[in-house]
């Protein structure tokens, strides 16, 4: 395998192994929640990576509309796919953790609701990409939607928070941040780092694949003409 692919793959392999060690062995068991709290070390980094991925979609979309370069479009598409993957992990690990701790799978809290809407928006983004005949126009549509979708994130969050503060919900207790033990904080940081490396690797590989696919299409047209 080419060295330029091997290094990031090995790096994320080591980082994820370290994250597993810290999350399952190094980090102490939480006193009230027990072992289920360890989901935290995968749940939060996945959320972080999905936000990062959608931020990349937004930036790449703006760059695409300004320059018209196809590579920006491929970067946006790659990042959106990875973002949807990680936000799906967030939405699966969330209820798994919430059920034993909050005694409910779901609550319409600002963070949960925003993640769910975000998931819907970027599923729509991926659908839009595959539903347009004309590739060049499709890329512009996707870019416009990618920008609005990301700008929508703080707006959705704000509106849901307003909605919940006006209708006080039962107090769920400090979910995180409230006096996290130093070992736990350390583990969280390592997992955040590992997931970011994993994201960068996946994005790089997906982007390269996208570039090759585009090049392949171009060559195919060239042969036929």
């Amino acid at each position, binding site marked *: 395998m080419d060295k330029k692919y091997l290094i990031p793959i090995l790096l994320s392999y080591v980082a994820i192994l370290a994250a597993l060690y810290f999350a399952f062995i190094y980090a102490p068991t939480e006193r009230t929640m027990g072992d289920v709290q360890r989901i935290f070390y995968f749940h939060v980094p996945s959320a972080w990576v999905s936000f990062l991925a959608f931020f990349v979609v937004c930036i790449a979309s703006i760059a695409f509309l300004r320059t018209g370069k196809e590579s920006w479009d491929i970067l946006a598409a790659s990042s959106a796919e990875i973002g949807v993957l990680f936000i799906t992990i967030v939405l699966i690990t969330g209820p798994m953790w919430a059920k034993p701790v909050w005694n409910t799978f779901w609550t319409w809290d600002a963070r949960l609701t925003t993640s769910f809407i975000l998931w819907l928006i970027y599923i*729509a983004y991926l659908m839009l990409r595959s*539903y347009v005949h004309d590739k060049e126009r499709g890329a512009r549509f996707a870019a*416009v939607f990618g920008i*609005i979708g990301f700008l929508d994130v703080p707006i959705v969050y704000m509106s849901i928070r307003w909605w919940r503060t006006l209708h006080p919900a039962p107090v769920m207790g400090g979910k995180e941040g409230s006096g996290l033990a130093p070992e736990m904080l350390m583990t969280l940081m390592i997992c955040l780092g590992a997931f970011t490396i994993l994201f960068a690797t996946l994005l790089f590989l997906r982007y390269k694949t996208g570039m090759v696919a585009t090049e392949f299409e171009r060559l195919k047209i060239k042969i036929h003409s």
Partner: protein
Amino acid sequence: MTGLKQILTIVQKDLILEMRSKEIIVSMLVFSLIVVAVFNFIFDPGSEQIRTTAPGILWIAIIFASNLGLSRSFAREHENAHMQGILLCPVDRSLLYIAKVIGNIIFITIVEIISLPVMVVLFDLDLHGVLPLLLLVLFLGTLGFAGVGTLFSTISANTKSREVMLPILLFPVTIPIILAASKSTSYLLAGRDISQIWSWMRILIIFDVIFLVVCFLLYEYVLEE
């Protein structure tokens, strides 16, 4: 021609077209009344529950009907290649967006003006003293929804299954507008304090401004080159 005159000409063209076929407004109206009727069966007739959910039902009827109207109006332009005709005219593209938004607001408002009295009768609502504010809330909600809807229906008109694509793009992104509009309406109808109503209306206005500015700036990218 000045900008204002150009906008009015395009709006007039849409209205004349609709007056001849009556296709969009009639289908929107029938649809919104059906939604109101169907929701009536979900709850016990005459129960207190239905009066508290009436504002929500009103907005569901409006956004479903608007969705139908928006996708019809742009599909029509697409089928008869109206859009190419308009793009050939020496009209600034951002003015085209404003004209389209105004046209869509007019269609939706007509539907609202007819459905609202029907709802008042069916759900026994008391509009005494709140009608001017209610109309303002309806207008603000319609403005935001039509603003985003105009951009997205231009996109979805160029996709494979346009009737499906529009709500998938439009609903998740406009959740903040729908939330703020339906909250303002329900506080208004419940006779809440003016400061509480105003707090939601203020949010609605802020969202309208943000969405309209962003959609206005991005509209030229979704039009054909």
